């Protein structure tokens, strides 16, 4: 640290320049992390928040838009409910609809049809909320569209109406659309394509509702992940004629999810590579410029380890300081991003991005300062230059 900190202070304008680049990269990394988390939340938070271990789709359903392709029935649900280690199995209906408020404001929703007395049903203020066929509980984020409890939402074209009876405590979205929980039978009624205008009635539902849903939602007796649950997926799929995926794997079935996350991941990866290259290039030039000074230090007996540590300390101080500054500015700017943009700053991804950037920057700097070990102290003597 003796030499490193003094050199940083003496050459502050030079180090400030590369520090600004590091800060900008950190800022971009934080913004991308926020965008990535925001897109993930916007795409699949409705699924993430379900107390579900796995989803059973109809056999052979492909990943893309699997929820709209898959059709399962009560027999398949029952087959899964009888499997060992399965604590509960419930039908879940998933469909995206366009609705309008009384003032004609459009409100797009992903309808999750759930049995009102099942583990999938949302609670409002700790109590089951879906008591009438026309009840719907919306994601907390739906409030931003101006919807209030008691509002009536009318499905486009068919005219069936749903009454908002509450909101969940958190963001529940799917495919960038707010989730609306409604009774499974009402979902089956709407999905039949024969639903009538106005509030759904028990009689109409009994007459026209389908008896199918999109998937069977499974909850394990032990373990939160499918791998840890002990559920025999192959046996269950054979018995129920389904294709089962872990909850995590079903995220890829959300519209656009894979494309969005892959794009953001690629941009982020490029940023990390750029950070490592920028730091590596800077310290390569810096080391070359100091070559004679380093040769003199080696000639007077400075151990190679001391000089390597010195170079890495400079890189570490630069990286930690300016990554923190960049990340801090990123967090500040993130707070200013308008509500409509899918953006969420979460501690773990931001901290992970910062640590990864510092680590890769150190790798770049480490490769650059390794040339210190190859500097011949003989070059310190005039006649050898």
């Amino acid at each position: 640290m003796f030499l490193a900190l003094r050199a940083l202070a003496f050459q502050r304008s030079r180090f400030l320049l590369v520090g600004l680049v590091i800060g900008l990269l950190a800022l971009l990394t934080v913004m991308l992390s926020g965008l990535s988390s925001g897109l993930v939340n916007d795409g699949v938070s409705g699924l993430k928040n379900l107390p579900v271990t796995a989803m059973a789709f109809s056999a052979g359903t492909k990943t893309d838009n699997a929820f709209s392709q898959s059709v399962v029935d009560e027999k398949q649900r029952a087959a899964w409910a009888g499997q060992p280690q399965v604590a509960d199995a419930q039908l879940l209906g998933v469909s995206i609809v366009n609705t309008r408020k009384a003032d004609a404001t459009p409100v797009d929703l992903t309808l999750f049809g759930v049995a009102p007395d099942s583990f999938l049903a949302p609670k409002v203020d700790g109590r089951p909320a879906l008591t009438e066929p026309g009840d719907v509980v919306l994601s907390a984020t739906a409030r931003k569209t101006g919807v209030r409890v008691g509002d009536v939402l009318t499905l486009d074209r068919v005219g069936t109406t749903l009454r908002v009876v509450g909101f969940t405590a958190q963001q529940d979205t799917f495919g960038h659309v707010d989730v609306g929980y409604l009774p499974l039978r009402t979902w089956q009624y709407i999905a039949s394509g024969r639903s009538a205008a106005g509030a759904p009635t028990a009689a109409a539902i009994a007459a026209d509702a389908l008896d199918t849903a999109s998937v069977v939602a499974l909850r394990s007796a032990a373990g939160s992940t499918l791998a840890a649950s002990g559920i025999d997926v192959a046996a269950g799929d054979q018995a129920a004629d389904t294709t089962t995926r872990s909850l995590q794997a079903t995220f890829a079935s959300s519209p656009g999810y894979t494309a969005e996350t892959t794009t953001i991941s690629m941009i982020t990866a490029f940023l990390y590579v750029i950070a490592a290259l920028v730091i590596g290039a800077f310290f390569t030039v810096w080391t070359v410029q100091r070559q004679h000074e380093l040769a003199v230090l080696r000639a007077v007996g400075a151990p190679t380890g001391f000089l390597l540590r010195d170079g890495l300390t400079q890189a570490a101080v630069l990286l930690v300081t300016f990554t923190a500054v960049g990340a801090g500015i990123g967090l500040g700017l993130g707070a200013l991003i308008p509500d409509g943009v899918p953006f969420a700053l979460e501690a773990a991804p931001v901290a992970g991005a910062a640590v990864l950037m510092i680590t890769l920057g150190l790798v770049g700097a480490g490769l650059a300062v390794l040339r210190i070990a190859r500097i011949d102290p003989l070059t310190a003597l005039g006649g050898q230059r």
Partner: protein
Amino acid sequence: MTTSTVPTPAAGAADTSRTGLVMSGVSLELGDGDRIVRALDSVDLVVRPGELVAVVGPSGAGKSSLLAVAGALTSPTSGTATVHGHDLASLSARRRARFRLEEIGFVFQSGNLVPALTVADQLRLVHHLRGRRDAFDVTRALEQVGMAHKADRRPHELSGGERQRVGIARALATHPSLLLVDEPTSALDRARSQDVVALLRERTERASVATVMVTHDHDVLHHCHRVLTMEDGRLLAA
């Protein structure tokens, strides 16, 4: 083989506990493209503590090679070089670096100070490299070369002569057995050259260090106890 005589240094300066530099039959062969060049040819040299020996000679005569071998920067092809009784060739690369730190001081052309460090920190750095945590009297060390009043300046704020004075103080900060000086006046005017070499003589005697100075500057040789000439790798009495 050429043998140099060893005159007695200034009265009272000799330190019998130190043996200075002893080179015996030292040869150094270096590759130069397809050829092998004999940079040092059977050099014998003894420099006692408190003695300032100048080595002069044309470029390419082997003066820097002499410093390189004496300074444990390279190992001779044959012969032995000992400093303070230690055979330099027997030391590993790591121990050679440590030995340079402890027993050998270097004064380079133009001082070759670390640009980022103040004058005081140039000396503290050497102390720091040695891993010493005890107090180091930087002011006294700078007073000895007349630079205490510029302890907070950086190299670019000093004249060439001042940089060399700091370089001398840095080289002597570890109380070495051997001081190797490489063209100390190459960037100085005549008056400053005289000052610097007079200071070298004074510090050599007071610190009781064996000093070898390579130079092209014949105007400063009268300060030295002995002057040797190097030609084609061979060391001759002047």
